[in-house]
């Protein structure tokens, strides 16, 4: 990677952090990992590949709602941004199938919606 200059820092498009229109973020701090976020993340990556679902899956830090970890935030075009709590392996697969592919929400796991 080349050295960054001041211009580079100022030039960066702040919209870039919004990662485009469709993405999944998994909270992967110690609190999330302890609750099983590792497995959820691995499942998402693996199953998305298996099912040919193209979506950007990324790690992120702790969102603060530690009592309902693991947290998975999903943004799909045309749907509100949803934060799912207490996600496990099975729920992760359902998120891919129901939310990402069929554009329907998983009601029982919604903890925040915007």
């Amino acid at each position, binding site marked *: 990677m080349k050295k960054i200059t001041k211009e580079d*820092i100022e030039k960066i498009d702040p919209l870039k952090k919004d990662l485009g229109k469709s993405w999944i973020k998994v909270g992967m*701090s110690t609190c999330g990992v302890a609750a099983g976020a590792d497995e959820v993340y691995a499942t998402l990556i693996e199953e998305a590949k298996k099912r040919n679902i193209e979506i950007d899956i990324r790690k992120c830090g702790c969102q603060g709602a530690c*009592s309902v970890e693991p947290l998975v935030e999903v943004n799909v075009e045309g749907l509100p941004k949803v934060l799912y709590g207490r996600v496990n392996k099975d729920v992760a697969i359902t998120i891919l199938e129901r939310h990402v592919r069929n554009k329907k*929400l998983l009601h029982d796991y*919604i903890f925040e*919606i915007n």
Partner: protein
Amino acid sequence: MQKKIIYLKDTDSTQQDRVNDFYTLFSNELRDTNLIEQASVVRIADMGLYEKGVAVKILPENIVYTGLKNTDVKKIIEETIKGNKVIKESLYEKKSKQMRAVLKNCGYIDPESLEDYLAAGGYKALAKVLLEMKPEQVVEELKKSGLRGRGGAGYPTWMKWNFARGMNSPEKYVICNGDEGDPGAYMDRSVLEGDPHSVLEGMIIAGYTIGSSKGYFYIRAEYPLAVERVQKAIDQAVEAGLLGNNILGSNYSFELEIRLGAGAFVCGEETALIASIEGKRGTPHPRPPYPSVKGLWEKPTIINNVETLANIPQLIFGGGAKFASIGTEKSKGTKVFALTGKVKNSGLVEVPMGITIREIIFDIGGGILNNRSIKAVQTGGPSGGVIPQEFLDTPVDYENLGKLGSIMGSGGMIAIDETDCLVDLAKFYLKFCVDESCGKCAPCRLGGYQLLHLLEKISEGKGEMEDLDKLKKISYAMQKASLCGLGQSASNPVFSTIRYFEEEYKKHIIEKKCPAGKCKALIYFKILPPKCKKCGLCFKNCPSAAILGSREAGYVIDPIKCVKCGLCFDVCKFKAVTKE
């Protein structure tokens, strides 16, 4: 027209859940008005609102109504869904009590990606400092901001930096104190794991300000993920030229290294921390000289908490005056708390200084588990104290908490309900400090042990009234004579529990009773024959075969064999087992 979605949730916990009734009402109403195509009803798990009655949120407009009655359903369908109008009377204006400044990137960006941090406005403050500001100007901004150390003591950050800046020495050091050891506190871990670059940026700015070219991250070894992410961040920064020689084309050079703490609580104390980095035994030594005069390798050193450093980039970028606009007169900015204990939603919260404890516990935390009532709040970990529920409306800042006999601390906040015993709590924290005392000075080593001994005596029902005075006396001696913060503050939990809950201590001593039913030596389990249905559940579950009898003759508890685990009390469906 875009399809509307109605999210439904009963936010009251005291009553029976009314969500299903409302779900039916809404569904029927939608069907009757032929609006099924335009809107759907959804029951969700949490809405971030508590004790506000039945609430709905309507998207895409994001309208929130609270305190709904059965009769409101028709109106909402009629006016909001069909007519696109907002019903003012039921509207809930969401005022978020939280304010995310330090945690603004946590959970939003990928902590392992420098690009993400840059896109979130990262390193802009560094560029501004290195290329446009003199060290004096940075100190001036800090002074304007009123930022105080977030590690607990609340020493003004600008003074610390200014002392070190004024020292004439070719070598100076910056240390980030990530040795977070308070039970129940994990703010620093989350920042290091969720947004490591912000701490890095803060450290480089600190280095530039005091004229240092070398910094250390002191992170406890129990945080492997934090260490991994910080190391990754350092590597990325070196590769991008944000660390190393001539940062961003200026003539300033700085390097960073991680040192692991090996699990000693006392190493969070700054002089012990320095000794630990130097490779010596982690014991404190007397101050002055303060580290900003004579610190690491006897050179001027500044030691800042993770949260303090994470505050720096946004402070410099937005300016000191903007930072100072948040908070109370003497405590500025925001503070991150790790909210744990008997609250419904435990987790990390970041609030502006000056918010009341009640707002944190009830509005953000959602209140107390199982609808019990709150008894007190413990802040500041083993160095802090308890705040009884009558003071819950106190605004949170350094001075107010100090006045109440507690401290801000690093930000642990533990809710205590009526089933917790304060003597037991004081014992727990004291035991922690006794275990962690390094043993160098006598007041802490001996005093702590004696205090613990006295508390154990009281909780076993062998306490005498003189013990209370002894507790106070030893606590006072420890506060005055201990070498470092650990010993000076180790007796705080004892002091503050006696101050507010002397009655509870007296009940233990005089009546030999534990009102909360926590102290095992003072409680007895008994089976009430009239209520007992002879089901034998307690008999089956007892781990120590202390329950005697049969399904025909009924059961009794043998007090000698009973280990007081409370299992029989928990499993009995007929409330035939009593605890006193």
